[in-house]
């Protein structure tokens, strides 16, 4: 994804508003809320249209393999029970109406309210996403710095080659690799699920949860590492060649102290933006990681919903993901302002 590297803006005269004016905050949040709602309406419409286009017969998707024994009255009863035969505009109106009141309808696959399914499944996914997000962020950033510090050396070239290879490796195949080697052959990690088999999930200890989280998170972090490593390296090399580092070296600074004091925070500015922007990519990747490791999160629910034609759940997940991605991007924007003092925090303008 093309993220413009932050160039060195000219010195602005006014000192930043350390205690941002109330109007600034309201304006800042207000604009974003309006933009988010606009997006959600768009996503809802786009999603609904896509679902209507689908040739998959909802009744048979619901029934799955048991279609073998059903008479036609039964099929009519199922259709009526789930309201699958009503004309499209009526269903859109009903769905949108409920949506506003927060009711996303009932999932046909899990026979439970969509909000409940998403809520419960997201908790499991959150652990996976957060770990992978942190892992890829930290690992990517450190590798980027190391590559920049040793630019031109064999280490630098191998880190870059590693990052490029990861970027073109299919996530699910990396998952398969880990599953085959680490889980099945070496048996160091469990092959599936979020908690040990047969154990009451609530009773699973943190250790067991992390043990189950280890491989899926590692697989998912592969998605995020490459871009962050490469962008951080590029920015760090730029900083290392800048006047700032020249003057620092003139002051007698060198080696890791120089990197730690002058390069890290400067390189962190674009890295943070990228790290939050990678949430969207991670969410997508989690669908694959959860499928390979049978991890009962939102990703696996998306696949089951897609395969079994569970329209309300699919639309619910799409909307939920949109909110997540949007919040992620905005947090990236705010985090970047916090790290880079040259940018006023609440200038009200939506910095796209």
């Amino acid at each position, binding site marked *: *994804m*093309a993220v413009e590297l932050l160039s060195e803006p000219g010195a602005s005269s006014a000192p930043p508003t350390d205690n941002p004016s109330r109007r600034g905050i309201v304006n800042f949040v207000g604009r974003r809320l309006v933009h988010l709602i*606009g*997006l959600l309406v*768009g*996503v809802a419409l*786009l*999603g609904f249209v*896509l*679902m209507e*286009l*689908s*040739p*998959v017969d909802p009744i048979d998707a619901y029934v799955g393999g048991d279609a073998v024994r059903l008479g036609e009255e039964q099929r009519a009863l199922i259709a009526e029970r789930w309201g699958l035969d009503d004309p499209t505009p009526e269903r859109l109106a009903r769905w949108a109406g409920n949506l506003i009141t927060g009711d996303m309808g009932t999932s046909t696959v899990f026979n439970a309210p969509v909000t409940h399914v998403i809520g419960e499944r997201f908790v499991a996914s959150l652990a996976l996403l957060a770990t992978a997000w942190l892992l890829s962020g930290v690992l990517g950033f450190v590798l980027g710095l190391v590559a920049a510090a040793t*630019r*031109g050396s064999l280490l630098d070239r191998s880190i870059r080659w590693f990052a*490029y*290879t990861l*970027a*073109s*490796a*299919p*996530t*699910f*195949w990396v998952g*398969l*690799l880990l*599953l*085959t080697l680490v889980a*099945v*052959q070496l048996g160091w990690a469990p092959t599936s699920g979020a908690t040990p088999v047969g154990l009451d999930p609530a009773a699973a200890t943190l250790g067991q949860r992390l043990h189950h989280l280890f491989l899926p998170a590692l697989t998912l972090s592969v998605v995020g590492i490459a871009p962050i490593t490469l962008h951080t390296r590029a920015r760090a090399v730029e900083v*290392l*060649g800048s006047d700032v*580092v*020249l003057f620092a*070296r003139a002051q007698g600074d060198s080696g890791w102290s120089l990197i730690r004091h002058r390069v890290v925070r400067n390189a962190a500015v674009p890295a943070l933006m990228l790290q939050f922007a990678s949430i*969207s*990519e991670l*969410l*997508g*990747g989690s*669908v*694959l990681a959860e*499928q*390979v490791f049978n991890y009962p999160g939102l990703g696996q629910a*998306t*696949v089951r919903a*897609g*395969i079994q*034609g569970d329209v309300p759940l*699919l639309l619910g*997940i*799409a909307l939920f*993901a*949109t909110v997540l*991605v*949007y919040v992620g991007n905005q947090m990236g924007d705010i985090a970047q302002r916090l790290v880079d003092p040259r940018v006023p925090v609440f200038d009200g303008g939506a910095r796209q």
Partner: protein
Amino acid sequence: MSARALSGPGLSIREAGWLPDRRRQAIWTVAALALVLAAVVVAGTLLADVAAKPDLMARRQPPSLAHPFGTDWLGRDLLARTLVGLRLSLMVGTLAAAVSASIALVLSGVAAALGRWMDTAVSWLVDLFLAIPHLILLILVAFALGGGISGVVVAVALTHWPTLTRLLRGEARRVMQSDYVRLSHHLGKPGWWVARHHLVRHLVPQFTVGLILLFPHAILHEAALSFLGFGLPPDSPAIGIILSDSMRELSSGAWWLALLPGFALLAVVKSVDVLGEQLRALTDPRSVHE
């Protein structure tokens, strides 16, 4: 002093000097990789029947001379199936990349040339498509089209045009606001003339770059869709399907079913990536001096 100003510290030998043979090296890599990819496509076409031929006596055989990649659960030769799968991926990748790139070209051209309202509409559409995580949108679109090859191609195409559109639109707007374009407006040239003359010439290199960079993404997403079961029918030799079949064989120790096709896909995607990079370095006017 005409030599490059050497005041900037931190210039290593490679970065300081401009290596003329880098161009030759790039041309060689492009030629070699194009040859490899062409070989895959040709092999994939020729081996279509071999890939489909089951041999119930020779099921799950490890890699051997007869079957370099071993055989799968129905005794079909895995190397043949992988090559046919790779050809399929390359075809789907090309088609999807081409479709999404042309959508991007049209939309960005329209956005730049036809005034502000159109521009905001296009940029809002881009934001809309980028708001949903890539793979979830892929599943939605694939579900809407009911799978199959056309479903996969359209799904991958429909989810890849936004990034390129944003890139091209930015470029188009920069061109439209540049002095010589504003000058030609003053000289009374109509909008479409400006678009044809200035815009196209600028967008084409970006377009080719974008098209090439879309390629690996398109292939990976086609494989992912097939892996999840939204893509092609399960007996068709798509890489995603071969790998999802391999998941079932893991505990039976048939490791080659998962690893070898995956490596092949990685190799193809990487070579497309490098091909794209080198082509970009050769064609993009700015970077040709790098």
